[in-house]
């Protein structure tokens, strides 16, 4: 076995040459662990993310919106499945990952620890949250780990469609009755700051950033991605005649950036540590579905075993027949 340091140097050289690392290739243990962390968190986020939007499927105001929202939440389940399989390429088992989530050991994106209080929330989640996810995933699509990059490319396409649907809901509300405009502004006020937190802590406090950049798992820093999202979204909000809930927001001619007031990082770390409005309820809902489905999963296994035994015995008969 080659010396660890040499292996690491060769690995870094492949990264610097923009090569994709594939499941069977050698990789530093830390590289594997970082990717398992990121990819499983991403998968968990897709699954838990089904709940806040799922809360409005039964109250969607038209048949078209009902079907579009149901299809969107279904897509998220698909993304979760896809990401769990991609994570399994790193030698971890999907059910172990899900157990970590259900037993509170694994993290998922903070944004889903906030409640969806009105139909406007469904629009703003599509517009802001999927918008932020796209900014993140477009970058991750160039990630050095092959399976993750490919997963991002596919998921990004569907997220773009989801974002357009969400934005379109918000345009309809903005052009609607005074109550609908008020409902939209209230949702923007509640989702703006938590969405900015989705990009993670500022660069100077981001524990993983340096290493992830070096290994080209990430190609841009949290603050760069955040700024990119802000620059896209602020003009869209103003174009709808809506306000951004940030008195210190201003446009910087020189850099072409929209500059924002301070982010409340205390709230960020508090919610991450499990003390947001819906942390307990999200996990309870996932656990309930898992526990109430146990007898179904057992039946599937028992039935499959019976089918195999029958197939084996008929095969035996045929061969002895």
């Amino acid at each position, binding site marked *: 076995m080659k010396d660890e340091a040499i292996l690491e140097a060769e690995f870094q050289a492949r990264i610097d040459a923009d090569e994709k690392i594939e499941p069977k290739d050698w990789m530093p243990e830390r590289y594997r662990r970082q990717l398992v962390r990121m990819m499983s968190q991403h998968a968990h986020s897709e699954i838990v993310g089904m709940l806040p939007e799922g809360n409005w499927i039964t*109250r969607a105001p038209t048949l078209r919106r009902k079907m579009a929202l149901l299809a969107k939440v279904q897509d998220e389940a698909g993304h*979760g499945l896809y990401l769990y399989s991609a994570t399994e390429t790193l030698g971890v088992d999907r059910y172990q990952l899900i157990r970590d989530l259900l037993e509170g050991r694994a993290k998922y994106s903070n944004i889903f620890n906030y409640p969806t209080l009105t139909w406007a929330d469904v629009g703003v989640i599509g517009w802001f949250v999927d918008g932020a996810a796209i900014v993140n995933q477009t970058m991750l699509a160039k990630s050095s780990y092959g399976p993750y990059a490919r997963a991002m490319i596919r998921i990004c396409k569907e997220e773009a469609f989801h974002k357009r649907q969400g934005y379109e809901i918000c345009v309809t509300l903005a052009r609607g009755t005074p109550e609908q405009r008020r409902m939209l502004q209230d949702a923007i006020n509640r989702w703006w700051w938590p969405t900015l937190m989705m990009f993670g802590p500022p660069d100077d406090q981001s524990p993983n950033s340096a290493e992830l950049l070096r290994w080209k798992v990430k190609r841009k820093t949290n603050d760069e991605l955040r700024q990119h999202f802000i620059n896209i979204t602020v003009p869209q909000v103003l174009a709808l005649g809506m306000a951004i809930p940030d008195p210190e927001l201003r446009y910087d001619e020189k850099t072409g950036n929209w500059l924002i007031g301070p982010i409340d990082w205390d709230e960020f770390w508090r919610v991450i540590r499990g003390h947001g409005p819906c942390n307990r309820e999200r996990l309870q809902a996932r656990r309930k579905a898992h526990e109430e489905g146990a*007898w179904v999963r057992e039946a599937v296994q*028992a039935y499959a075993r019976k089918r195999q035994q029958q197939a084996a015995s008929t095969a035996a008969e045929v061969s002895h027949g």
Partner: protein
Amino acid sequence: MTLETLDAALRPALFEYLLRLGDDALILGHRLSEWCGHGPYLEEDIALANLALDCLGHAEALLTLAGEVEGRGRTADDLAFLRDAYDFRNVQMVELPRGDFAFTITRQFLFATYACLLYEALQQSAFEPLAGIAAKAHKEMRYHLRHSSEWMRCLGDGTDESHRRAQTALDELWMYTGELFEVDDTLRTLTEARIAPDMAALQPKWREQVEAVLREATLTVPEDPPYMATGGRRGHHTEHLGHLLAEMQFLQRAYPGAQW
């Protein structure tokens, strides 16, 4: 026969009939959508969402056509979100709460077997727009039938627990199957006009297919009870529909006239 060449005398009966098919699909789709995010495991969560999307798609097509036949400018959304319980025409089976996974699957199986036969026959409907909808719906319902039949065998012949739950669901749902094949004046009128199939002729096939799968699933076919639930086709439902509509219709009721 198209919308334009439709005999005016048939419009009331046809409007009623399209509400029946449309409301069945709408309410069943709504109950199925309640599983989204709460299924026994991810793959089944996705499958149930597919079933719900198919149903809601049928509902939109059928209710849109119903509005056109009625001729008072009502859209599918008006019919879905602005009628109260006693103006709904779905069979009671589809409005029952989703219960556990065995209840939902057993209902799917009993209903999909019926819907498959119905839409297959409706492909020959003299009313062309309906025949068109039926052609697409039949393809989708064949998948629904395969999915739920496979699950019935799995639950029935899986573990003691899944067998018990499936049998309980079957016993509770059986009193709601008779309504699927009720024949009244509305249906007779449309059968004579070759717009709707003769439901009485479909019932034996339905029974045969259901019993075949139940046998493979080692489940017992319940006795036909003295009282088969009825009334849904005349606006008399269970106490569950009102609660379902209160949730489903809230936004259109609370913000009348708003566009969404």
